[in-house]
């Protein structure tokens, strides 16, 4: 920042000089402007902004994607979405993912970070081990766990059999399918949040902690009154990622349950896929997309305004 302030007056003076003196330089900047910026702007507009606008437009039609949309039905698609029970189930499931992220994943990640931020033999290896699930593709993770949960060959089944019980088919029951997905979500993502906390812990001002210890605070007092408050910005960030991640969860669900059985484990995106994309119901699918868009943008803006003002 300071560099820019130091630099900008020079820049300002330079641009006031007559063009004749520094014509080529201005030309140079102009060339950069018209060569360097358009590729990014065109790609972004074409593949990100326009589709969102078009989603809003298409959502007013009953359209299968062929030819031009002609069958205008106004807001009916939104009504159809809101009348679908599966939509509310998907919304509830997203809520469950967020709840589990906050109630289980976040405390787990924080505890592990506090343990592993200290240097001891094996700490580095454990950090890497816990981070590993995060870099695996969600598809691969989903497939691995569909084996783990498999009622005939899976790990869970074999544990059940060892106790002489009839193995459950966790993914095939509406009661347990979402629970099974939630466990995989924790398995996959806690390491990422742990790494966020470790990075934050390592950049903490150590003198504050030392001061507290010198003043006679015990380890747990230091933790509660010094370390955790210093981590609040990171905790808010971690919560933000957990919620955003939940809203776009899709790849993980597909190999596990495809959102089933009977829509019991759909997330918003898998609901969108199953009901809009795979059946090419463009209007209906776009309406779901717009609803998801509104949820995401409203959340992101509100959250940043309320909780992340200081960053």
């Amino acid at each position, binding site marked *: 920042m300071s*560099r820019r302030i130091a630099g900008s007056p*020079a*820049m300002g003076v330079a641009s006031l000089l007559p063009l004749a003196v520094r014509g080529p330089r201005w030309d*140079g900047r102009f*060339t*950069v*402007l018209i060569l360097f*910026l358009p590729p*990014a*702007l065109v*790609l*972004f507009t074409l*593949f*990100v*902004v*326009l*589709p*969102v606008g*078009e*989603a809003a437009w298409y959502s007013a039609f009953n359209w299968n*994607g062929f030819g031009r949309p002609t069958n205008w039905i106004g807001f009916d698609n939104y009504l159809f979405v809101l009348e679908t029970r599966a939509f509310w189930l998907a919304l509830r499931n997203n809520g469950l993912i967020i709840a589990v992220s906050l109630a289980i994943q976040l405390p787990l990640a924080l*505890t592990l970070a506090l*343990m592993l931020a200290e240097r001891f033999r094996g700490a580095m290896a454990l950090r890497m*081990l816990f981070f*590993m699930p995060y870099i695996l*593709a969600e*598809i691969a993770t989903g*497939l*691995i766990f569909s*084996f783990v949960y498999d009622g005939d*060959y899976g*790990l869970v089944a*074999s544990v059940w059999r060892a106790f002489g019980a009839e193995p459950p088919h966790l993914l095939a029951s509406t009661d347990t399918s979402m629970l099974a997905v939630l466990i995989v979500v924790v*398995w996959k993502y806690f*390491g*990422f949040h742990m790494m966020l906390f470790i*990075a934050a812990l390592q950049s903490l001002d150590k003198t504050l*902690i*030392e001061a507290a210890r010198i003043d006679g605070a015990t380890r747990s007092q230091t933790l509660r009154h010094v*370390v955790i408050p210093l981590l609040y910005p990171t905790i808010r*960030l971690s919560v933000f990622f957990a919620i955003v991640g939940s809203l*776009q969860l*899709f*790849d993980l669900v*597909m*190999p596990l349950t495809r959102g089933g059985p009977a829509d019991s484990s759909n997330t918003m*995106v898998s609901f969108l*896929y199953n009901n809009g*994309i795979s059946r090419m119901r*463009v209007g209906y*699918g*776009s309406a779901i997309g*717009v609803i*998801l*868009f509104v949820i*995401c*943008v409203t959340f*992101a*803006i509100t959250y940043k305004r309320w909780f*992340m003002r200081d960053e």
Partner: protein
Amino acid sequence: MSNVETTPAPFDSAVLFKAAFLAVVSIFVLVPLLATLLGGFKSLGELRVNPFGLPRHWEWQNYADILFSARYWQLLRNSLVISTLTVTLTLVVASMAAFTFAHIKFYGSSMLLSYLTLGLLFPAATAVLPLFIKVRDLGLLDTYFGVALPQVAFSLAMSVLLLRRFFKDIPYELLEAALVDGCSYIKFFRYVTLPLSRPILATVGTITFVNSWNAYLLPLVMLNTDALYPWPLGIMVYQGEYSSEWHLILAFITLTILPTIILFLLAQKHIVAGLTAGAVKG
């Protein structure tokens, strides 16, 4: 924080609890991964009675069959082509834009930058149907570019932000001196900015690569031909074909995640820095 400790704690219950806790979490993470790796070495019959332990009889055939099949290599090649296209285009397009935003003042620059960062607010899935229609109308359906270009577009927001922040820290005096010496902006970008920015380019490249390598939804929507499928799509097809022959599926999973794990072990630092750096800016 351990250096705060004045006397090394003797063997107490806290240490014991910590060790036990770490052990439980390690088992939770490791068991599914190891069972997958070992499962690929078992016969289906053995998998049913012994999914946890070491194989009593090592079946190398499962792995060998996949490694010598054209299918496996084709999937990896497709993934590699799409990811390489995505990473290259992202780095080129994003660094050019970031350079402009970092060094050139023009009317509307901050507005355009916030326009680009809108991309951080919502996932690609929200507009995937219109995106499909757009890609179809452009004639890019069922091509590598049909997948790569939208991926580039969606990775631009984060990439431009990260690169711009880094470019801005390159001393302004350097640019000024270069310009006085008659170096053009474009030459400065090519011969000074880019070489100085290798760490951040590596970071951005890594994030983009991992995301593209693992991507499922966009290829699923944009590709119809099996021959073009990247591995996440291919492995789902494979699983559909061999539905309950878990020993084969597990071997296939192991071999497809192997490149990721090797890359991770080789470039841990970059990957961790990359994936958490994106986070810091949020």
